[in-house]
């Protein structure tokens, strides 16, 4: 029996050391695309000097943990106090309402109100957090490759076909393996889909069956993968809805035109350095419009926290105008804060290419389609994205016909809607 008692004692010890949140401790789960982890650490250190009674700990994790493990933790009522998340809407029932806790709710509404809907349950006026960065999907061209190939970089209103043709010429002349690449992500596919006239949202607010617009671009996309215009590698490197980026191929000069988004700018700035010249191009056009997708990562408070007041203090601090400004300037992220946007930013980089690219992305936010603006705040976006990636990658791998992929996308989404019971 003693043995058993030892075991029980071990349990007890475990219990005590585990969940007993230390008073005044606030944990932030954070993933990094670039240097933002270090910048955040600086800012938080300053906060702790101001508030010695609150200990803020940053847990750096990989992006896959945020995507795969965090939702399950939240489902169990575990998880950190604050997290940096991209699927904000789908998980919105787990976010803490900061409205009664923050010093000045009106400040939040004024400066972050535009994206508040992206991260709260439909129909509430909750303040869940704020966007650490606004992103826009868009393209990057390897200018050096274009120049060497003697191919002109397509103009601002060029179509996807124009880009495909130009990129192909460049790749052939410069012997690079991929004319174009597009991240393995439903979000990335959606901009072009909308440009081809797609609409995801049905009349009842639930997902509509996949329409001609989406079909048109996806067919084109799969055709490009087949004939080698579009990089196959990134799309076939996983099954299911796993996210994969083709950024490394672009950085290594293997891609002429890469469709990703504004968050890659700091990454490219540091990693490409002077290896080649690159430019941001905005989003190519389809028959309907020329839109990218807005998006971004939000910092949200989690409702299972034991220290809501301290959490609110941390959030208040990080949402301060000068803090947002410094964070954005040092990370080269586009801020969400209205006041900061209006007063303008001085990005802390001596890389002219990065500055120019950020300029292109800022301009491209003005030409977003209405639907593209709506999607981040739509409950079913993630569901649609997941189904798109899963099935399009099967079509791209050549194991499923396009028609079948379209039927499957509809079926997957319908099953998920049914499972949710909404």
């Amino acid at each position, binding site marked *: 029996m003693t043995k058993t008692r030892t075991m029980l004692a071990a349990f007890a010890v475990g219990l005590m050391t585990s969940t007993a949140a230390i008073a005044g401790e606030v944990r932030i789960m954070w993933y990094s695309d670039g240097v933002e982890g270090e910048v955040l650490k600086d800012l938080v250190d300053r906060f702790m000097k101001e508030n010695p009674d609150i200990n803020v700990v940053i847990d750096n994790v990989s992006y896959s943990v945020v995507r795969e493990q965090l939702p399950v933790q939240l489902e169990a009522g575990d998880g950190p106090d604050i997290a940096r998340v991209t699927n904000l809407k789908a998980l919105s029932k787990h976010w803490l309402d900061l409205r009664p806790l923050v010093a000045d709710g009106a400040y939040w509404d004024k400066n972050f109100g535009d994206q508040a809907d992206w991260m709260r349950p439909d129909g509430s006026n909750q303040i869940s957090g704020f966007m650490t960065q606004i992103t826009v999907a868009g393209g990057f061209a390897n200018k050096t490759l274009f120049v060497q190939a003697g191919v002109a970089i397509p103009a601002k209103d060029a179509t996807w076909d124009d880009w495909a043709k130009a990129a192909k010429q460049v790749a052939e002349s410069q012997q690079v393996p991929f004319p174009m690449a597009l991240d393995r992500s439903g979000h990335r596919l959606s901009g072009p889909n909308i440009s081809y006239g797609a609409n995801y949202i049905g009349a009842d607010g639930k997902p509509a069956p996949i329409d001609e617009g989406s079909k048109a671009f996806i067919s084109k996309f799969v055709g490009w993968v087949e004939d080698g215009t579009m990089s196959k590698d990134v799309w076939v490197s996983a099954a299911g809805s796993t996210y994969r980026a083709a950024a490394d191929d672009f950085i290594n000069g293997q891609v002429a035109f890469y469709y990703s988004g504004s968050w890659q700018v700091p990454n490219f700035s540091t990693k490409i350095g002077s290896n080649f010249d690159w430019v941001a191009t905005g989003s190519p056009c389809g028959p309907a419009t020329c839109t990218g997708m807005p998006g971004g990562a939000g910092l949200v408070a989690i409702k299972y926290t034991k220290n809501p007041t301290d959490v609110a203090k941390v959030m208040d601090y990080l949402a301060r105008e000068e803090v947002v400004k410094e964070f954005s300037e040092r990370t080269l992220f586009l801020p969400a804060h209205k006041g900061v946007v209006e007063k303008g930013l001085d990005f802390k980089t001596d890389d002219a290419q990065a500055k120019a690219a950020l300029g292109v992305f800022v301009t491209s936010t003005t030409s977003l389609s209405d639907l593209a603006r709506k999607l981040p705040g739509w409950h079913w976006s993630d569901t649609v994205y997941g189904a798109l990636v899963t099935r399009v990658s099967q079509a791209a791998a*050549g194991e499923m016909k396009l028609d079948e992929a379209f039927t499957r996308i509809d079926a997957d989404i319908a099953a998920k809607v049914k*499972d949710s019971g909404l």
Partner: protein
Amino acid sequence: MTADVPGRTGLSLSDLAMVPVRLAMSFIDAPLRWVQKTFGLGGMATFFLLPNMLIFGIFVLLPFFINFAYSMTGGTALFLPDRSFVGTDQYARLFDCANYLDPNSCVEDTFWTAVGNTGWFVVLQVTLMIGFSLVTALILNRDLRARSFWRAVFFFPVLLSPVVVGLIWKWILQRQGLLNFGLFSFGFEPHVWLNDRTWSFAATVGVSIWAHMGFYTLIILAGLQAIPKDLYEAAEMDGTRTSRVFLRITLPLLMPNLLVVIVLVLIRAVQIFDEVYVLTGGGPGTSTLYLTQYIYETGFATQLRNPGLAAAASILMGVVLVVLTLLQLGLSRPSEKKGSRK
């Protein structure tokens, strides 16, 4: 094998460092004598079994039963009371097919693709693993110089973590990896192995053999070394041919070991996950998506998460494993008796 050399080495540790442990053990002894007096030998058996069974019960059996309950419920909630009872709907969904010969006609086509992939994987894995390990064991059983070195060569990947195994091979098979470099420098066209559905599948089989064959080789080697030498001497006197000796003496006497190997390989092959997850992620398309990954992703990882469906799939997988193992055990009974003659 007796407890000679390693046993003594194990004991020599017990000199000084073990003194407090010994003291503790004698302290434990007193209450245990009381237990023994009160409950008898049966009570002691329970006592010895208890800690293991307790942990086992909480962390293995209980989840297993919860899993069963999950498979009868729907929704995305984690804790059972929050989940709605749906009866056998999840199973019905898995089995909802227009044509049972064509996985694409099923509602859960991904599940059946995973089942098909896993089936092929198991067949290839079992045959090739036995083949490679048997040949390696036969060769290591020869009169070799530096045999422990050769044994180590084949065994060391067993100790690597699946993540490392996956990373190493991904690094080699990728577009700009070592393999393509090799082909390139011999004037061949490089090939993107992991983009190719057949090659990816072959890669998962091969990598899995690479990582585990050392373990099975050792088991078979142990069997080879236990075969009485006089049998071979007798065969030598009769002038029997090598192949005949192998078929008539080596193989039959090796059967018990081979059966252990087959059962273990089979169980592991059905459960294949980690190294493949790192190596191919299940792609291209779904060509290396195996059952465990399907279950993990359906239950845990994807945006289309459905723990109930995942649980139903895992219960089916468990049933298949139990049936396969019982079949194996049934087959091995008679040969065990044969084997015990040695």
